[in-house]
C-alpha cells in the first residue's frame, strides 16, 4: 500500500535558511569543488585548502557586509516555507541525463518568489481558526468574498434540494449534462443568463448580447486568451500600477507578451492620467517595441477605485488615436460600496456607433458571486475575429457541464440575483466601514476607494527605510509577528513604497478587533521615536 515516488518540490534546493526577523542575512553555503577538480596539490591540499579559504572568505564578508541595495522581492531572504510534498525516493538519476523542459517551463518553475504568493501559502498552511488555531495567520491577502455565501446556500436548498447536479427537476439526465460540448464556449442558456446577470450587476445601465459572450473556466484563462488573440510574443500592454500581482503570470507566462507599467501616485489618489499613458506609450515605441493595448481593472485592484465616465472616454480616444485595444477587467463590478456609480466600458461603447472592435471586457463569478471554485469567466467583445478565435480557444478551458447546469437557473432567477447583489453590497460596505475605522484607530489611513473586496492602506510612515526593503520588512513583521497576511505594494508594482492591500471580506465582524489588535502590536514597534 505504500505509494512510491512521492514528489519533492525541486525549489526546496534553492531555498536558504533565514533569521526570524527576516533581515538580509544568511550565509551562503556553497561546496567548493575547484580544488578537487583541478587536482593540484593532491586531494587533501587541493581540496581542503580552497574549501577552508572559501568558507573564511564567506564568513568575513558576512561580518563586514554593507547594507545591500534595495532588491526586488525575489531575494531568497524571505521566510522558508514548509512544502507539503515529501522526499522522492526515485532510486536512479538516469544514466543518459535528464530530458530538459522548455525554457518557458524553466522560467515558470522558479520559486514563487513574490510575497504575494509566499504570503498566500503561509496563510493557508497555518490558517487561523478561532477554536483550532487561534494563533494562526489571518488571511487578508486573498480577495475572496465570504460575506454572502449563505444567500446562495439558501437558494440551493430552496430550488435544488441541495443537489449538486442542479439541472432543475428531479431527473439527472446524464446524457444532457455529459455529452460532447459542441459549444465549448458555453451553453446558449448560460450565455443568456450571464448576459442578464452582467447587466444587473452593472445597474442595468447597459445590456449585454449573449452572442458576444465567450465563456471560460475562470477569468484567468479569459485574460490569457485575449492576450493570445491581440498580441504576438514581444508585444506589450500598458497597465496602470499598482496592479493585481496575478497579471504578471496570466498575461506574460505563455504568451510572451510584456506588461509596461504606467505609474500612478497617491498625490492624485492613484488616478490614471492620459499624459502618463502617453509618455509610457512613446517610450515603448522609441525602443522599437509594439504596444497592442491597455489592460485596465475597473474597479481597480488593489486600490479599489472606479474609473470616471470622463476617464473612460479619454481612454477610448487614446486607444483610437494609437489604434490599440482596451481590455477592461470588470470582475469586481458588482462589489462596489459607497455612493459612486460604476460605469462599464460597455456603457461608453453603447453610446458610440463606430470603432468598437478594439474593446474587450473580462468578467467572472469568482468575486461578485463568491464562486471561485466553479471556474466561471467570460470574454465580452465587439470584435468578430476575436470572438471567433476565442471561441475556438475555449476548448482548452471550458466550463464544466454540471456547473453550467447549476448556474443557469440560479442566474436566471433575477429576483434572487437582485436581492443578492443588493445585500452583498451592503455587507461589503459595513465591513469596509468597520475595517477602515479600525485601521484609522491605529493612525493608518486608506486610499479613497469605492469597489473591490479590499482597501489600500497607507503605512508609509511606518516603514524604515522609506523604500522597498523597508516595506518588505514591515510585511514580514506583519506576517510573522502579527500573523496577518497582507499584500505589499511592491508585489503590485506600486511605485511608492509603504502601501498594503488588505482584503476584509474573508473576515466576519467579530474578527476585526482581533485583526486590529494584532496590527497594533507591530505598528507600535514601527512608530518613529518621538
Amino acid at each position, binding site marked *: 500500500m505504500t505509494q512510491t515516488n512521492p514528489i519533492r518540490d525541486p525549489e526546496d534546493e534553492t531555498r536558504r535558511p533565514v533569521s526570524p526577523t527576516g533581515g538580509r542575512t544568511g550565509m551562503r553555503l556553497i561546496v567548493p569543488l575547484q580544488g578537487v577538480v583541478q587536482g593540484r596539490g593532491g586531494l587533501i591540499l587541493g581540496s581542503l585548502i580552497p574549501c577552508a579559504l572559501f568558507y573564511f572568505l564567506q564568513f568575513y564578508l558576512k561580518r563586514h557586509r554593507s547594507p545591500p541595495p534595495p532588491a526586488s522581492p525575489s531575494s531568497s531572504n524571505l521566510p522558508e516555507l514548509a512544502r507539503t510534498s515529501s522526499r522522492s525516493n526515485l532510486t536512479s538519476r538516469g544514466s543518459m541525463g535528464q530530458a530538459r523542459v522548455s525554457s518557458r517551463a524553466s522560467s515558470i518553475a522558479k520559486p514563487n518568489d513574490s510575497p504575494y504568493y509566499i504570503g498566500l501559502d503561509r496563510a493557508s498552511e497555518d490558517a487561523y481558526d478561532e477554536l483550532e488555531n487561534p494563533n494562526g495567520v489571518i488571511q487578508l491577502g486573498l480577495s475572496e468574498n465570504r460575506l454572502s455565501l449563505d444567500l446562495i446556500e439558501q437558494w440551493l436548498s430552496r430550488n435544488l434540494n441541495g443537489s*449538486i447536479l442542479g439541472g432543475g427537476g428531479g431527473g439527472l439526465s446524464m446524457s444532457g449534462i455529459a455529452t460532447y460540448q459542441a459549444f465549448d464556449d458555453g451553453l446558449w442558456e448560460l450565455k443568456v443568463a450571464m448576459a442578464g446577470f452582467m447587466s444587473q450587476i452593472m445597474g442595468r445601465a447597459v445590456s449585454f448580447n449573449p452572442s458576444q459572450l465567450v465563456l471560460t473556466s475562470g477569468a484567468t484563462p479569459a485574460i490569457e486568451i485575449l492576450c493570445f*488573440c491581440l498580441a*504576438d510574443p514581444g508585444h506589450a500592454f500598458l497597465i496602470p500600477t499598482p496592479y493585481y500581482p496575478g497579471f504578471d503570470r496570466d498575461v506574460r507566462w505563455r504568451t510572451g507578451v510584456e506588461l509596461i507599467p504606467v505609474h500612478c501616485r497617491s498625490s492624485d489618489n492613484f488616478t490614471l492620467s492620459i499624459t502618463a499613458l502617453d509618455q509610457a506609450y512613446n517610450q515603448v515605441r522609441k525602443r522599437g517595441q509594439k504596444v497592442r493595448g491597455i489592460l485596465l481593472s475597473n474597479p481597480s485592484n488593489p486600490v479599489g477605485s472606479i474609473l470616471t465616465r470622463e476617464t473612460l472616454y479619454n481612454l477610448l480616444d487614446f486607444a483610437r488615436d494609437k489604434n490599440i485595444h482596451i481590455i477592461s477587467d470588470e470582475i469586481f463590478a458588482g462589489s462596489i460600496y459607497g455612493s459612486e456609480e460604476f460605469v462599464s466600458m460597455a456603457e461608453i461603447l453603447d453610446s458610440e456607433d463606430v470603432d468598437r472592435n478594439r474593446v474587450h471586457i473580462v468578467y467572472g463569478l469568482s468575486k461578485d458571486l463568491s464562486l471561485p471554485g466553479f*471556474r466561471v469567466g467570460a470574454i465580452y467583445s465587439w470584435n468578430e475575429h476575436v470572438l471567433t478565435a476565442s471561441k475556438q480557444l475555449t476548448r482548452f478551458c471550458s466550463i464544466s457541464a454540471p456547473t453550467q447546469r447549476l448556474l443557469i437557473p440560479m442566474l436566471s432567477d433575477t429576483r434572487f440575483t437582485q436581492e443578492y447583489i443588493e445585500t452583498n453590497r451592503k455587507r461589503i460596505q459595513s465591513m469596509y466601514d468597520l475595517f477602515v475605522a479600525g485601521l484609522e484607530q491605529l493612525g493608518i489611513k486608506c486610499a479613497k476607494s469605492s469597489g473591490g473586496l479590499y482597501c489600500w492602506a497607507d503605512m508609509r510612515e511606518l516603514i524604515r527605510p522609506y523604500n522597498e526593503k523597508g516595506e518588505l520588512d514591515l510585511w514580514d513583521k506583519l506576517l510573522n509577528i502579527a500573523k496577518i497576511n497582507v499584500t505589499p505594494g511592491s508585489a503590485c508594482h506600486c511605485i511608492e513604497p509603504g502601501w498594503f492591500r488588505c482584503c476584509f471580506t474573508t473576515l466576519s465582524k467579530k474578527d476585526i478587533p482581533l485583526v486590529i489588535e494584532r496590527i497594533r502590536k507591530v505598528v507600535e514597534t514601527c512608530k518613529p521615536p518621538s
Partner: protein
Amino acid sequence: MTIEIEQPRVGLSKIAVSKTHGEDSPYFAGWKAYDENPYDEFRNPSGVIQMGLAENQVSFDILEEYLEQHAEEASWGKKASGFRENALFQDYHGLQSFRKAMASFMEKIREGRTKFNPDRVVLTAGATAANELLTFILADPGDALLVPTPYYPGFDRDLRWRTGVNIVPIHCDSSNNFQVTPQALEAAYKNAESMNIKVRGVLITNPSNPLGVTIHRSTLEQILDFVTIKNIHLVSDEIYSGSVFSPTEFTSIAEILESRSYKDCERVHIVYSLSKDLGLPGFRVGTIYSYNDRVVTTARRMSSFTLISSQTQQLLGSMLSDEKFTGNYITKNRERLRNRYEKMVGGLRNAGVECLEGNAGLFCWVNLSPLLESQTRESELAVWEAILHRVKLNISPGSSCHCSEPGWFRVCFANMSEKTLEVALKRIQSFMEERKITSG
C-alpha cells in the same frame, strides 16, 4: 445621411488569424454537414448519422443508476459548510480526495498492475488542455514532437496552435498493421534534424486513435528505449485505456516503467481523462500524470488556466472512490463496447468491407481502398464526400488523420444507440451493393 468612415483595423495576433486550428479540414466539415441535417430516428430518418465523433454513450445508464442510488454523492457532502468550502476552493492542487479517486480509478483500469501516486496527478479541464500544457512545458516554439500516424486530427490544433511547436510524423502503414517500428522512429527523428528542428519528445496514443488498437508491449519497450537514447520525453495519451475490450490486452507505459524499476522514468508523462471511458466529455476532467517532479510542479501552476470546477471534483470524487461501482462499470463498459465493435465489424463484413483488427476504443479503422479510383488522397476525399452526401454518414477520412496510405477511414460506433448503428450498417450495405452493380 451617414458617411461610412474607413477606420484603420486594429491589429490581431498571428495566433488569432492563423489556420493552425485546422477547422477547415474534412474532419470538421463533416460535422458541419451533420449539424445541418442530423439523423433522428423519428423526426429525420434520412438525416446524416454522426460516425465521426468518438464519444461513448453505451454506459450512461450505469452512471445514472449509481447517482440515483447514492444521493449523498450528489450533494455537497455531509458537513454543513460543504457547499461553502467547495465554492471557495480554487487551489490548483485540486481536491485531494478527487486526486486520490483519479489515481485509484487509473489503477483499477490497469487491474492493479501499477500504482499511481495521487501527488503526481495534475488536474486539467480535459485531456485537450493536458496535451497542450505538456507541450508548453516540454518544448519551445519551433521544436517538434514526433507523433505516429495516423493520429487524432485534434492534435494538429492542440499541440501546435498556441505553443508554436511542430508535429513531425512517424510514418506507419498497413504492412505491419500500422505499428510503430524503430526504423520509423529513426526516420522521423532524422527528418526533423534535416529541417533543423529540435525534437523534444514522442507522443503516442495508447490505445491508438484512430486505429482502435493497443500498442504491443514490445513496441512500447522499443519506443521507451528510443526516447532514452535520444534523451527526449515520452507522452503516453492513455485516454482510451478503459475502453479496451479485454483488460489483459492493454499494457500501460506505467507497467513498462515499473518492470524497469522506474529507472530513468522522469522523461515519461501520461495523459488521461474521463471523457471517453466514463462518457463525460462535458465535465472537462483531464489529468497529467508525470514521473518528473519539475513537470508536476510546473504543470500544476500552469493548470491555473484550466482548472476543473470544484463542484465537479466533489461530485466525481466519491463516485470514483467507490470500488464496487468502478469495478462494475469498467467491466460492463468493456463488454458493451466489445459487443458494439463485433456488431460493427460483422455488419461491415457482410457488406464486403474489411477493417483493421481492433481491440479497443470507440471506433473501427476501416479499409475502403477498393473503392478508390486511384490510390490518392483526392480519390479518398471523393469517396468520403460520396459517403457523406449520398449515404449520409459522417466518417473521418484517413487523410485528416495524416495517414500516409489513402483509403482508410475511422468509423465510430459508440456514440449512438444500437438501432441507429443498425441503420448505419444497412446504409453501408446498400451503398456497397450499388457499387457492385454499377461496377460489375
